[in-house]
């Protein structure tokens, strides 16, 4: 059995760190992240369909996709990411953001994201995804910054409180 997903927050760096070890060679995991035919099979969320409209796998290249709920829902969540580093098969760095269908990014939703694939012995691959909370750099206003900090802190406390949440 592979283990469960671990999620923790680095409050100082304002990062959400997601970690999961899977039983698969690193090259295969890389392909799942970087080939639309694979990606749409697992990107989810469950019950939703993901359609990839662009995946230019090179620094500066665009990854444009849309998530739609199944079951007749009409919502559409468009996302546009720009790749910064593409180092097969170990490292993928991009900035993901909400956008419209033409790829115009919603300001303030940019999330710098780093995917690291580490090869372990026994045919296992350790997947680490590091996402920075959006907005923080964009905030000049000290009061607004304090509000966001308070919010993140409250989330941390809430996490300890909720029975179903992760106790990292």
């Amino acid at each position, binding site marked *: 059995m592979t283990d469960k997903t671990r999620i923790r927050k680095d409050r100082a760096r304002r990062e*959400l760190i997601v970690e999961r070890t899977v039983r*698969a060679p690193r090259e295969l995991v890389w392909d799942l992240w970087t080939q639309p035919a694979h990606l749409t099979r697992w990107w989810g*969320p*469950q019950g939703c369909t993901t359609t990839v409209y662009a995946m230019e796998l090179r620094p500066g290249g665009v990854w444009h996709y849309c998530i739609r709920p199944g079951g007749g829902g009409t919502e559409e969540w468009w996302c546009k990411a720009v790749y910064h580093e593409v180092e097969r098969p170990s490292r993928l760095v991009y900035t993901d953001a909400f956008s419209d269908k033409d790829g115009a990014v919603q300001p303030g939703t940019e999330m710098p994201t780093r995917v690291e694939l580490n090869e372990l012995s026994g045919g296992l691959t350790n997947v680490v995804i590091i996402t920075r909370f959006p907005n923080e750099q964009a905030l000049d206003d000290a009061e607004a910054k304090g509000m966001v900090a308070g919010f993140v802190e409250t*989330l941390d406390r809430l996490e300890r409180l909720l029975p179903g949440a992760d106790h990292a």
Partner: protein
Amino acid sequence: MNAAPALGALAEPNRFRIVELLRDGPRPVGEIAARLRIRQPQTSKHLRVLGAAGLVEMRAVAQQRIYGLRASTFRDLDSWFRTFGGIWRDRMDGLDDYLRELQRPKRRK
């Protein structure tokens, strides 16, 4: 769900302590105040704020006001919270499932 009122109410440390205490079960105001060493009028004020945010509910039993957590709000908060880290958790489950499917050994006849 709009989680803001609940999160706002919980941001105050004493209110958070009250919620933590009530996790073990409903308690009368006097007992909450005594256990947390908060003056009773202050405790009542905090409980009113928590009540307005839907986090606690009050039951009057004889002369006492008993406060307990309102489960439905916490369930909503929980599902709201899951959408935060939960997107990645679900996604990693999806990745793992798909990898298993891809690598499943072909069955012999």
